[in-house]
Each structure stands twice: as structure tokens, then as C-alpha cells.
């Protein structure tokens, strides 16, 4: 019984030693020890016990000593192995974390140099990481209808038309160079409308070269997608549309003043240079100054006020009407010609234009106006025809707009506060517009007609000397990219030089009444 209890005690002691080894290690502080645990087995009392018992006890003692040695060995090695394992695992974790950091840094660096692609309301854009190289694809699609009323004698053509179909490739090269290429597939011919490059040296110093809008007319310079009506007014008949040239331009004082001065081949009144080459030596000098003095001020009511003057000057060599600087004719809102020069008439000498202009935008209200003088020396090549006649044609317009839904009006387009989405009870932006314009042709163009119709510059029975147009409409901006509008234009004509009345069937013979609609997509 005693022996059994002793075994149990020893075993319990040995087992207990394993858990309490730090304590033993701490306690085994005797010099020369290595901090390992030890169990002191008390010597048996020398009472001459049973030899068999003694042998058994001795064996047990040896076992215990062996176990103690093992325990000591385990205590010595187990922490080191555990420590090594833990250290190894710790290193692996650190390596993985560091690898991840390096990979993230590499990914960030790569992303910083990766090209950017975007598609949204501003079209499709593809650019380098630093935006020094950009290629953008935009498009304009205008699907119109024109319906002429009370045109029994001079029938306007009712119908649908693709007024503008323009894919636009634009972008940036080497940070400072902008480019634009715009062909047009609308109407009855394909042509290049814009093809230019601009060097942006500084806001005040930019150079533009190629085919683009000369800096003359205010309404003409407005982007085609931002005009209030389907067609520009009579005033724009007297200014050039697009031309080939080189211009210096810039913005000063934060855009409060801007200038453009350029040299161009010379385009006739509201006409584009269709051929992309030059026809005569003399060139047109075009220039414009425009001021928005309160653009950057705190006076909100005046920030949208701008005024300026544009003009052009050229000295045309005598040439045929077909090839150079004589207008092919002035058109109504419905794009019908109400004035043309006779076939044997040509530009002969100085042609200058002057256009004071202004606009004002404040809140939902917009107002735009301009006055244009186009003064041109014109000759009839008939031996007895009018020669070097100083023809001064003038035009002016006033156009107003009001956004019923409260957005801010702007020369540069409207952004609806809410896009059209009937599910959300959102109806886009609505705008009413109205315009008055008139164009006056110099009566001198008809001189000589009464002597001989071949002597005058124009035929007073087919061409009016005055057109007056009143238009009003409603524009619906579904979102920044989609717009629909309906408008009505009424144009009356005056003329009858020398008592002549307009010929039956001629455009000026009766008032023009046109209902326009348009669906426009632009991005």
C-alpha cells in the first residue's frame, strides 16, 4: 500500500514537473546548474525493509531519474524548437506582407502609366496616363424636318433631312497640341468641315492652323449643337462660315478679354471653303476682339455679359463667281435663296466686314445680338455692265431665350438639372426661344437692270433687297447629349427695284413660313 502510494506520488511528481518546469527552472538557481528541473527522491529509511521492495523501489527510482532526465531534455529543447518555428513563421508572414507591399507599389506605378479609357456624356476618350496624348471620338447627328406653309407659288420642299452627320476626331498631342478632324456626311455631299491643329503655348498665346471658323460672326462662332434654332439667322448670311487659314489667338486676364487675328484664303458671305485649296493670291485678314469684363467678378448679374467686334478685310482680284469670293446667295431660315448675284458678276476689289456683337446671360435668361456690314466691290463682266460697285449689305439680329426649368442659359450650351426620366418624374430642361433678324441688300446691285437686265449685278424680279424674319420655338434638352426642338419661322421680303415686282414662283414672291423640328444627338 505504501509502495503504491509512493509510485503514485512519484509519477504525479514527474508529471507535475513538466507543467511547473519554469518554476523549477527558476528555483534551480544553484551555481553550476543549467536551470533544469530536478526531483529529489528521499532516501528510504534504513529499517531493513523487504529486499524485493527495495529492488522495486530502486528500479522505480531509476525510472524516475530517467524520466526526470527526459523531462529536463524536453524543457531544454521544446522552447527552442517552438521559437524557431515561430520565428520561421514570422519571417514567412513578413515576407508575404512585404511582397504584397511591393506588388501594390508596382501596381500603383503601373496604373500611373496606364492609358485611361472613358466613355460618357463627353464621348469616347482614350488618353495616356499623363493626359499628354488624348484621342477623343465625338459625334453630332441632327435629324430635321421642314414643313413649308402657304407656299403655293414658291414651293419649299417639305421633308426630312440629315442636317448634320459628323463624326469628330479630336484630341491632344504632346500636351500642348490640340487637333480636330470633322467630316460631314449630312446634306447632299461629303466634305471636310473642320481640320485644324492648335498649339497652346500659353492661355494668351495660341496658334491655330487648318480649316476652321474665321473670327467674325458671333452666332456663326457658336457651336452648331448649341444654337437656339435649327438654322442661324439672316445676320449670319453675311459672315464667313469656315475657311483655310492661320490664326493667332488667346485669352487675357483670365478670359475677360480674348483676341483672334488670322490670315485666311477668304470665304464669301455665309459660305464655306468647299475646296481645300486656294484660288487666288490675295488673302483675307480676319480679326475679333471680345470682352467679358465681369467674367471673374462677384457681380453675378454681369458675369454673363460679353461684347466685342469681329471683322475681315481682303482685296479680291477679279475672278468668276464660281471660284472666289462672291456669295452664292443669301438664304432664308428655310434655306431658300432670296438673293443671288447674276452669273456674270464677280468680286472685284476690297471686301470688308464689320460685326459689333454682344450677348448677355443671367440665370435662365439669354440674349444675343449682332450687327453685320459686308461691304464688297463687285463688277459685271458685261462690257456695259456695272463696274466696281461698292455694295454694302447689312444685317442684324436679336435672339432671346428663357429656360422654363430654371437652368442657367449659356452661349456654350445647356445642361439640364435633371435628365429626362419619366419614371423619376424628371422631364429634362425646357427653353423658349425667339428671334428677329433682317438683312438689307444694297439697292445698287440692281442698278442698270432697267437699261438692260444683263448690266445689273442682280435681278430684282428674283432677288429681294430686304428680308425680315421672325422666329420662335421650344427646345427640350432631355440630357446633355439629346435634344429635341420645334420652331416656326416667318420671313417677309421687300424689293421691286424700279417698280419691278418679284417673279411668280421666285422665293421672295411670297412670305416664307416654315415649321422646323429637330432631334439632335451629340456627344
Amino acid at each position: 500500500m505504501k509502495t503504491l502510494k509512493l509510485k503514485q506520488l512519484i509519477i504525479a511528481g514527474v508529471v507535475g514537473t513538466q507543467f511547473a518546469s519554469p518554476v523549477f527552472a527558476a528555483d534551480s538557481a544553484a551555481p553550476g546548474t543549467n536551470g533544469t528541473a530536478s526531483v529529489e527522491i528521499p532516501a528510504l529509511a534504513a529499517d531493513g525493509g523487504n529486499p524485493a521492495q527495495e529492488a522495486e523501489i530502486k528500479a522505480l527510482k531509476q525510472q524516475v531519474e530517467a524520466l526526470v532526465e527526459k523531462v529536463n531534455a524536453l524543457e531544454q529543447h521544446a522552447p527552442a524548437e517552438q521559437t524557431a518555428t515561430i520565428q520561421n513563421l514570422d519571417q514567412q508572414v513578413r515576407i508575404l506582407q512585404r511582397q504584397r507591399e511591393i506588388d501594390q507599389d508596382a501596381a500603383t506605378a503601373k496604373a500611373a502609366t496606364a492609358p485611361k479609357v472613358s466613355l460618357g456624356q463627353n464621348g469616347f476618350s482614350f488618353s495616356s496616363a499623363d493626359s499628354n496624348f488624348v484621342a477623343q471620338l465625338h459625334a453630332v447627328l441632327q435629324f430635321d424636318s421642314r414643313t413649308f406653309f402657304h407656299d403655293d407659288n414658291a414651293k419649299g420642299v417639305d421633308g426630312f433631312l440629315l442636317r448634320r452627320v459628323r463624326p469628330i476626331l479630336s484630341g491632344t498631342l504632346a500636351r500642348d497640341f490640340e487637333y480636330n478632324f470633322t467630316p460631314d456626311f449630312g446634306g447632299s455631299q461629303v466634305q471636310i468641315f473642320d481640320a485644324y491643329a492648335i498649339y497652346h503655348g500659353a492661355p494668351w498665346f495660341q496658334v491655330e492652323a487648318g480649316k476652321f471658323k474665321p473670327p467674325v460672326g458671333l452666332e456663326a462662332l457658336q457651336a452648331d449643337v448649341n444654337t437656339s434654332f435649327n438654322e442661324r439667322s439672316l445676320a449670319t448670311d453675311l459672315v464667313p462660315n469656315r475657311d483655310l487659314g492661320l490664326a493667332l489667338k488667346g485669352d487675357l486676364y483670365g478670359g475677360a478679354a480674348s483676341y483672334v487675328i488670322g490670315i485666311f484664303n477668304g470665304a464669301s458671305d455665309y459660305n464655306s471653303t468647299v475646296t481645300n485649296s486656294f484660288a487666288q493670291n490675295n488673302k483675307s485678314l480676319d480679326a475679333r476682339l471680345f470682352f467679358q469684363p465681369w467674367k471673374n467678378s462677384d457681380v453675378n448679374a454681369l458675369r454673363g455679359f460679353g461684347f466685342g467686334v469681329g471683322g475681315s478685310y481682303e482685296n479680291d482680284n477679279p475672278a468668276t463667281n464660281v471660284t472666289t469670293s462672291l456669295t452664292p446667295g443669301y438664304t432664308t431660315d428655310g434655306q431658300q435663296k432670296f438673293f443671288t448675284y447674276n452669273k456674270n458678276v464677280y468680286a472685284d476689289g476690297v471686301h470688308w466686314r464689320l460685326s459689333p456683337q454682344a450677348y448677355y446671360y443671367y440665370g435662365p435668361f439669354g440674349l444675343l445680338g449682332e450687327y453685320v456690314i459686308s461691304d464688297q466691290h463687285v463688277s459685271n463682266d458685261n462690257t456695259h455692265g456695272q463696274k466696281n460697285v461698292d455694295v454694302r449689305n447689312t444685317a442684324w439680329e436679336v435672339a432671346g431665350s428663357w429656360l422654363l426649368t430654371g437652368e442657367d442659359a449659356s452661349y456654350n450650351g445647356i445642361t439640364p438639372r435633371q435628365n429626362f426620366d419619366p419614371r423619376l418624374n424628371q422631364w429634362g430642361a425646357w427653353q423658349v426661344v425667339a428671334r428677329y433678324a433682317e438683312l438689307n441688300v444694297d439697292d445698287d446691285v440692281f442698278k442698270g437692270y432697267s437699261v438692260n437686265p444683263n448690266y445689273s449685278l442682280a435681278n430684282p424680279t428674283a432677288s429681294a433687297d430686304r428680308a425680315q424674319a421672325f422666329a420662335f420655338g421650344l427646345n427640350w434638352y432631355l440630357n446633355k447629349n439629346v435634344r429635341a426642338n420645334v420652331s416656326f419661322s416667318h420671313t417677309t421680303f421687300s424689293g421691286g427695284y424700279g417698280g419691278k415686282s418679284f417673279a411668280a414662283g421666285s422665293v421672295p414672291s411670297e412670305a416664307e413660313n416654315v415649321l422646323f423640328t429637330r432631334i439632335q444627338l451629340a456627344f
Partner: protein
Amino acid sequence: MKTFLNLVLLLAFAVSVKAAEVKLLNVSYDPTRELYAEYNAAFAKYWKAKSGDDVNISQSHGGSGKQAQSVINGLEADVVTLALAYDIDAISTQARLLPADWQKRLPNDSTPYTSTIVFLVRKGNPKGIKDWDDVVKKGVSVVVANPKTSGGARWAYLAAYAYALEKNNHDDAAARDFIGKLYKNVPVLDSGARGSTVTFAQRQIGDVLLAWENEAHLALKEFGADKFEIVTPSLSILAEPPVAVVDKNAKRHHTTEVANEYLKYLYSDEGQEIAAKNFYRPRNEAIAAKYAANFSQVKLVTIDQEFGGWAKAQQTHFADGGVFDKIYQQ
């Protein structure tokens, strides 16, 4: 028409005349941040006293190869201070931003200071790393940057390779085997030398860092001499980091004169002192002697001696498909 063109040219000329404060961009390799922070302040003071002009020096740091590529790709460096001549040669040949003989324009082949590769180990050197043979042993974790992007890592690679060549009677196969074993011990490849220092010293990864000598000293200074110690191998390589004006950029920025002076001043007494204080071995013998205690005595071999020059070394070891690519994929 002619009058108009004359007007355009006159305005263009007016634009081209710069009136702004002088600014320099120094594109440098990874571990030179502290050196150029101190040097730039000194040079700005010197230039102000000499010319009356203010000069504002911006720094860009990264792996030497990456930095060279950045300049080639358009980073508008006025000067480059890179880890090895090959990287500046690349700027010359690929981007033609400076002439091929750029290295002759300044003394000592345009290297105002030198350095070498040493070992930085944990305090007490628990793995007992004394020389290159210890670095390739199993169980030793080595931290070094990627030689494809880091100039320091290329020097370290070549130092190890040179040791193996010297040890094995210039047996190339044995040297490749040696370098293969070394990179098997590398758990993480940073893109630049500074990144490797972060890995070793801050992230506590690895047993030994193969470091620029200056980087090793800076680690002791920053983290404490109670954390790390420097071990100098029996053999290392003479690293000669060169400097150069990037002619076309400097011309475009109208900074040629200042850029030239900026690099020349590295050879002045003040420039050499600053280099030495930042643990770069100065070329000036007097100043080198003054700071001799900062630098260990070590047998140094040159890239020309062991590898036939940088062009050959780059082609053999670090180009795509070179020795490094082969051993690192194994």
C-alpha cells in the same frame, strides 16, 4: 501676309524667353536622398553667393535602371546622378539627350565619389556571416534589390560574381552556380536599394542585406548600432556612380550653365566633404584621408577588370534572357 508672319515670329520669340526662377531636376538613384538633400542646400547657397540667382533643385529617386527609363520616356531631368554608367549610356543611345562621350566631361569618368557593397546583418550576427560563402549557405535569408531595376543590386550581383570568379579560378560555370545559390536565398526583390533597406531594417526580413556602403552606414545611424552591424566581405566591387547633365533638357529649360556648375561643385571641397559625411568615398584624397575611419578596408575589383566593362556585363548578365533571368527562373 508677310507682315502677319513677321508678327507671329516676333510674338513666338517673346514667349521663348523665360523669365522664371532657375529650377533643376536631379534624377538620381535610390539611396542618395540624404546626400542630395544636404548637397542641394549647400549648392543653392554657393550659387546664390556666386551669381545672385536662386536655384530650386527638385529630386527624383528610384532604382537606377527605372530612373534612366523614366528620363528616356520623357521625365525632364536637367541632370542625372545614377548608380552606373550604363544607365546614363542608355539615355544617350535611346533618347539622344546627351552625347555619347558624356563621361569624359567631368573628372574621374564623371564619378565624383565611389562606393562599394557590404553586408548589413542583425546585431550579434546570429548567422555568423563573414563573407560571400556564408551568404549562399542554406538557411540564410538574403535581402537585395532586383538587378533588373536597381543599380545597387547590379553592383551587388557583380560583387558576388566577382568573388566566385576569384575563388574558382575564373570558372564561369562555378560562378553561375554560386550566384544561383545566392538568389535562391532571396525571398523578396525590391525595385531599388532603399526598398531593400526598408525590407531588411523596418520589416525585419532576412539575415543579411547586400547594401551600398553608404546605405549600410545610414541604417546604423537611423535604426541604431544596437540593431545592426556592418560586415565587410573579403572582396567587393568598386562602384562608381556617375553624374551627367542631360544636355537637351537643360538647353530647353535654359539651365545648362547652372546644371554644369551643379555637377562641378560635387568635386569641390565642400561637395567632397558632404559626400564623405554621407558615407560615399570621396575622390579628393585629402578628404578621403580625413574620413578614412568611416570606410572599411576591402579588396576592390573593378567592372572593367572582372567583366570587361558595363556594356558587356549588362548584356551578359542583366539583359533579357541573360544570366540573371536564367538563374532566377530556376
